[in-house]
């Protein structure tokens, strides 16, 4: 009985030691500042659409993102190698109606394009969960990571309205384009690669890291476009288009991290 109690006691001690060792190897990392430029990539599915829609949503302009649009809230790293991270991701850019306006002007040479405005922003945002593996070589860091994003690409109340007036006449054509998102829960899959350098001043236990990152975001979704053409005293002509497509972005950026202290359980 004494032996049994001794074995149980020893096992308990070992467990506590291993748990302590495990928790001592964890480090909680604080929010990380990053700035990046997002370059939207047009999906192949949008290249050959009818009714001029291949020129509708894109081109969207490359856009800078700063700390408040995209950053890592918090991360937990084991032995400074295996990490679990929580991100708040964001990308926002205005889409341009110019290409679609040119399509309308070419298609209706007898009309003046009086106004063609687009209320549309390519907006991609939400929360993301990431796993990372950190490789160390001297003071350099190489960190590939994968993120699963619970995000949605939103075309912020996409509405296109163009008015064309016939030359030498009061007749007109009016185009409305509306969008409906058919994917109820959109996700994104993101691959990132960070290359950085870490250093620690002699007088201070705080560590600093600076680096650059390359990121590719892929987020599939289905959307439906309704194109309506109106003219005076005529029933509206309506065309619908359902497209299975994806949002693709390449982000190139820089980051800066401060490791305040080792987190101890």
């Amino acid at each position, binding site marked *: 009985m004494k032996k049994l109690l001794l074995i149980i006691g020893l096992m308990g001690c070992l467990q506590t030691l291993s748990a302590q060792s495990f928790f001592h190897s964890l480090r909680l990392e604080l929010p990380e500042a990053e700035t990046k430029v997002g370059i939207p990539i047009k999906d192949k599915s949008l290249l050959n659409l009818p009714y001029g829609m291949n020129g509708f949503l894109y081109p969207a302009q490359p856009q800078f993102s700063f700390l408040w649009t995209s950053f890592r809230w918090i991360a937990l790293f084991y032995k400074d190698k295996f990490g679990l991270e929580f991100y708040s991701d964001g990308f926002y850019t205005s889409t341009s109606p110019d290409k679609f306006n040119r399509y309308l002007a070419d298609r209706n040479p007898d009309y003046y394009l009086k106004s063609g405005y687009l209320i549309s922003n390519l907006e991609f945002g939400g929360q993301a969960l990431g796993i990372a593996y950190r490789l160390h070589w001297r003071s350099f860091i190489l960190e590939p990571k994968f993120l699963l994003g619970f995000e949605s690409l939103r075309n912020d109340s996409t509405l296109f309205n163009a*008015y064309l007036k016939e030359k*030498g006449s*009061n007749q007109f054509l*009016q185009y409305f384009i509306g969008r409906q998102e058919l994917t109820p829960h959109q996700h994104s899959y993101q691959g990132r690669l960070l290359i950085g350098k870490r250093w620690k001043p002699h007088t201070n236990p705080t560590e600093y890291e600076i680096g650059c990152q390359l990121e590719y975001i892929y987020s599939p979704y289905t959307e439906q476009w309704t194109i309506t053409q109106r003219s005076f005293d005529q029933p509206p002509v309506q065309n619908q288009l359902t497209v299975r497509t994806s949002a693709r972005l390449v982000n190139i950026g820089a980051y800066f991290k401060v490791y305040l202290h080792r987190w101890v359980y």
Partner: protein
Amino acid sequence: MKTQPFSKPLLQVLLFTAPLLFSSCLKYDPYLYTVSDIKLFNADNSGNSGPITDSSGTVNARAYAMQIQFTTYISGREGHIVPEESGFALQNKTTDFNIYSSTDFDGSHPAGTSLNDLFLYAGHDGTASAQTTVANGLANQYLFYAYAPNGNDTDKPWTTDLYILLMKPPASMGYRTFILHVAFANNTQFTDSIAVTLR
């Protein structure tokens, strides 16, 4: 130690921002205006810059626009009026708005019948939509929409133009006279006519 629900800096921030938050929600009442005169002019809407007043008396029928110049004055200041913020609302609603031709227009529009269904309300900038017909403009009381007078000098009468576009040419071209009759809820009525040669 006694705890306080708000720290002093937070309270100061709230005290500073509260008036700003409330001021943005204030509602301003519009000036009430009355139409005192209406005059018709011919206009040509062939180009890209909106209807242009025509002085020749001959206009392409497909691009004919009727320019209605109406004179207004402020007839009421009720509620919370702020000169820089208050808009303009018609005090006496439009009760009748009809365009006629002195001669037969086409088979379904003999002389003296309303031509409202052939005209489109074009607004101030020459743009129009299939929904904004004269009837719709009348029903929604935006046919006679008053813009701010020059320099916001609301004590003096000012004139504003509206354009209505002829969307279907007549059965036969040539000389004709259009007549406009407008009535308001205060029993004031205006009638003006304009002669034009449609080609």
